[in-house]
């Protein structure tokens, strides 16, 4: 018995990108802020492109704390939602072909969220990554870091607790 040939890389990539797209595209607020996600395997990097409407202090100028907090919360929810979806696709529990065709995967709900403003948000693009520190049946704890020019100098970080979406 020979092992079945692995699927072509392009087929796998397209399937994963389609699943991620379905997760992100369903949320109007993500489009409102212009946030995009860059995927490398299961790792996501969120990108907040600079826009004048994200400014809070026009004299500095600096990003609005609310724009920064929103960016971190979006990154945490999608990061956690994506890790759940990834596992379900890989284990075969979810058929990726069914995702996207009008069917949006359920996202986790925020219980609490603490944003720590480390530096002034500069008027340029920002990036963020989420780390799921714990993901149980009901609750999850997620940490997020956001940076601009220098990955080693984050300008904001956050920790939040989330209610896991019900299995479907």
């Amino acid at each position, binding site marked *: 018995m020979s092992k079945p040939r692995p699927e072509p890389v392009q087929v796998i990539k397209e399937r994963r990108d389609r699943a991620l797209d379905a997760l992100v595209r369903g949320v109007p607020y993500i489009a409102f802020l212009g946030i995009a996600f860059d995927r490398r395997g299961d790792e996501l990097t969120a990108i907040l492109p600079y826009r004048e409407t994200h400014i809070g202090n*026009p004299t500095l100028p600096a990003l609005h704390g609310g724009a920064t907090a929103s960016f971190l919360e979006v990154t945490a*929810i999608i990061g956690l939602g994506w890790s759940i979806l990834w596992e379900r696709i890989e284990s075969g529990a979810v058929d990726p072909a069914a995702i996207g065709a009008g069917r949006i995967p359920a996202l986790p709900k925020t219980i609490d969220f603490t944003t720590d403003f480390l530096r002034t948000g500069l008027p340029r693009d920002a990036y963020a990554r989420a780390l799921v520190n714990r993901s149980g049946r009901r609750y999850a704890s997620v940490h997020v870091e956001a940076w601009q020019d220098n990955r080693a100098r984050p300008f904001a970080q956050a920790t939040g607790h989330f209610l896991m979406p019900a299995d479907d």
Partner: protein
Amino acid sequence: MQNQTIARQVIESLPFSQALGMRLEEVGEGRAVLSMPWDARLVGDPHTGVIHGGAVSALMDTTAGTAVIARGDGTGTTATLDLRIDYMRPARSGQRLRCEAVCYHTTRTVAFIRATTQDEDAEAGPVATAVGAFTFERREEVS
């Protein structure tokens, strides 16, 4: 009184607050009330039409900052150090959110705030509450 005037003039002119449609309702000594209308572009859950937590955060951060600016003993400038938000229940779809923030204590360098957000269904209890710390500069008294 002077800082309350600053708060009035500045807050609604911030580009991000404007983009979210925030409106200054009340301002007093170390206290502010801002509101934000329901808007389809701010929705976080397309199944229910509930506003995204991030937009609620933005409203609470802005209201809290306004309360700090409105302190008569400060210089009228501030920045958020940290903000913790607890989400009690989803905001009702289609309803205006109203956030009240109080700056309840200041040191020479730090302002502490509490804030509560409600929708139009006040009997259902708050949508979210927040606590935070902001930078603060005490105004030098000129005698």
